[in-house]
């Protein structure tokens, strides 16, 4: 469950208002798609949710934990995949995953099972004992996804997770997201692939210039605008 109230954030001493009084509620068991043009404020919102940026105003609660006052508890329930991950080049894949498992206090049995499942699923088993330095972009992305989900977090927060993944891996990840939600967990992700959002998401939010301009199920969005495809809705709403 994610609860965002009156969230605002400006860069450069207030000159660039990246997120402007945003209110958002995502239920448990829901996949929520976060759409918006480049520079709309998606990454900024997400970074505030996971504690990388401090909000100027407003509050965020993740699974009932306030990100400001109960940050450690909130962080333990989050699995976060950034849009452009820089990770430790000079660790091997396994060392990185073990590090993540250790800091999230994953038991040896759980970690063994999950790591094996993910490595198998993403076909990373071969490369796992190589230095991350030698990974391709997509391999790195898959490793970061694995590391983020290793503690089976109740809330997934993913910033454009499909970028760089091959069709098969992207497909598997989508299935995994679906399965995760069916177990009563929450998935929140940003994307530019409208098709994915349309098919996968229970609800969709569209942000433009820091403001949430539409939110609802596909059916609700269609009703509101009168057009049928998400593409048309998106273009219509984000037009100047």
């Amino acid at each position, binding site marked *: 469950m994610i609860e965002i109230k009156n969230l605002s954030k400006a860069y450069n001493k207030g000159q660039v208002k990246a997120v402007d009084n945003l209110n958002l509620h995502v239920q448990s068991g829901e996949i929520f798609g976060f759409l918006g043009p480049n520079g709309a404020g998606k990454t900024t919102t997400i*970074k505030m949710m*996971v*504690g*990388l*940026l*401090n909000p100027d105003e407003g509050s965020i609660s993740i699974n009932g934990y306030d990100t400001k006052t109960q940050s*450690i*508890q909130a*962080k*333990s329930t*989050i699995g*976060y995949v*950034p849009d452009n991950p*820089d*990770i*430790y080049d*000079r*660790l091997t894949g*396994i*060392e990185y*995953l*073990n*590090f*993540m*498992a*250790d*800091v*999230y*206090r*994953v*038991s*040896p049995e759980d*970690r*063994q099972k999950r*790591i*094996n499942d993910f490595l198998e699923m993403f076909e990373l*088993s*071969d*490369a*796992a*004992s*190589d*230095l991350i*330095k*030698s990974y391709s972009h997509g391999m790195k992305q898959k490793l970061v996804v694995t590391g983020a989900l290793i503690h089976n977090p109740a809330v997934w927060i993913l910033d454009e997770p499909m970028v760089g993944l091959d069709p098969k891996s992207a497909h598997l990840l989508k299935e995994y997201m679906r399965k995760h939600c069916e177990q009563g967990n929450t998935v929140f992700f940003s994307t530019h692939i409208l098709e994915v959002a349309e098919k996968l998401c229970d609800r969709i939010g569209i942000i433009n210039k820091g403001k949430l301009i539409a939110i609802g199920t596909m059916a609700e969005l269609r009703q509101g605008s009168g057009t049928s495809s998400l593409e048309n809705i998106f273009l219509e709403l984000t037009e100047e």
Partner: protein
Amino acid sequence: MNLFFTLFRTNLNLNFGISALKYRFRKESKKIPETLLIVIGILFGFGSLIGLYSFLMYQVFSAGLNLGQPEIVLTIAFVSAQFIILIFGIFYILGVFYFGRDLSMLIPLPLSPYQVLGSKFAIVMINEYLTALPLLVPPIIIYGMGTGQGFFYWVKALILVLATPAIPLTIASIFVIVLMRFANLRKRKDLLTIVGGFVGLLLSLGLNFWIQKLQSGNMVNSIQRLIESDLIKMIGQSFPPSIWATLALGGQGFSGFAYLLLFLFVSLLLLAAMLRLGNQFFYKSVLSGQESTRKRKVLSSKNEHRRFNSSTSPMMAIIIREWRLLLRTPIYVLNGLSGVIIGPFILVLLFFTQGSAGGSGSYTTEQLLTLINRPEFMITGTLSALCIVLFTAGMNLVASTSLSREGQTFWISKMIPVKPKVQIVAKLLQAYSVAFLSVLVTVIMLALFFKFSLLRIAIVFSLGLLGSLPLTALNLLIDVLRPKLIWTNPHEAIKQNLNGLLGMLISIILLLLIGAGVIFIVMIKTPDSLVYGLLALVLLLLTVPSLLGLFNAAERTYRRTEV
């Protein structure tokens, strides 16, 4: 040619961070005092070094004048400048030509290899003026003024100084280009870093000893001996351009100009040869071997089982991560670890060379040893040893760049559910274990070479460990207060990081203060045990606030830093 200049300008800009500096002055006016302070500090440091060098060169000039060979000072200057540029140039050029991050961006551009190479060479050349100018200008002025030279001397001198880096650098470049063509060192970058580092270290050590020698004996005498031994001529003959430079400056009229032309002609010839060679080979060797090694070891299920089964506490996990990242980055090993271990060695070596120089004023090593172990020098010896121990602990770059080294991966530390305090304790423990190592090495040295008794060893060891803790904490605190998280090359995190310098400075100031206090209480004839007791108390009292300050700062930095 236009393209070449664009490239050159961009490189120049990147090299000296001109845009960044402009930005800094325009946007972050708060940081101006800090920048100015740094500049003044650097100028002061350089100024005193140049002063010392000028004095030395003046001695050489006077000695030469006595022997009727005043030009010797010029030969020495040109030989040493060109030699130093040659040696360091090899590593520098390797780095700039072949390991630059901009290569992957430059190669796709519609430029010929020689244009890229030329612009990079020009940058190296300009940087080498920083080496050439301080080495050449003082002797040239000393000679020019000393022998009353006219207008043409100064014109020739200007041209020569500007041209000096060219010959050694083209030779270094040709060497590097050929080397890279046949031995693909791009894969061996880590090894090269270590080798380069040690060559630099050896050279500076050698220089140190040489200066030490010069200072300990009668300087004028030894310079005279040096000149009479024809050593300089020999070196000069094996590297004729420095003789030409001397003759160009020292010679009058036509012969002087002839040698100047010869010098310039050879420089241009070498430059042309280098570019020609580079045009053929440069891209080929750059393009081959851009891979990092992969083991491609398939995990056997048993292997897997073991690997995922080991779980540790978050703090331990962070300590392990810190050690792995440190040990696998050569530049960190070289700067973070070798200093700590080599430091004690240098001190001991210096002690022995000092002792065995054997002039009338100094002791022999044996005399010194008995002196140190005499009862009345007991406390002085022990405290000096402790001072060395604490000094090496205070130079701990592992602590003062700990947070900076995380760089762009700092988001991970912000994201994981581990309290900043726990993370910082992990970093403190890592840095402290490095300090522990250096204390251990120094103490072993003291026992082996200085024949310290067990009790003294125990005192030095325990007080050393106690004192290293606040020093390590303070070094870490500096990095926590002003971490440098934005960098692309690990060099920037450890070598070009001001925090390392600040950490050393604060440690030195602190040690000086404590030292002054200790000297005072020893002077007023306080019993030895009380001196040690008081010292322990002071170090303990220092530890508490530095740790508290560190934890507080960590909470704040981890919370406030946005990534």
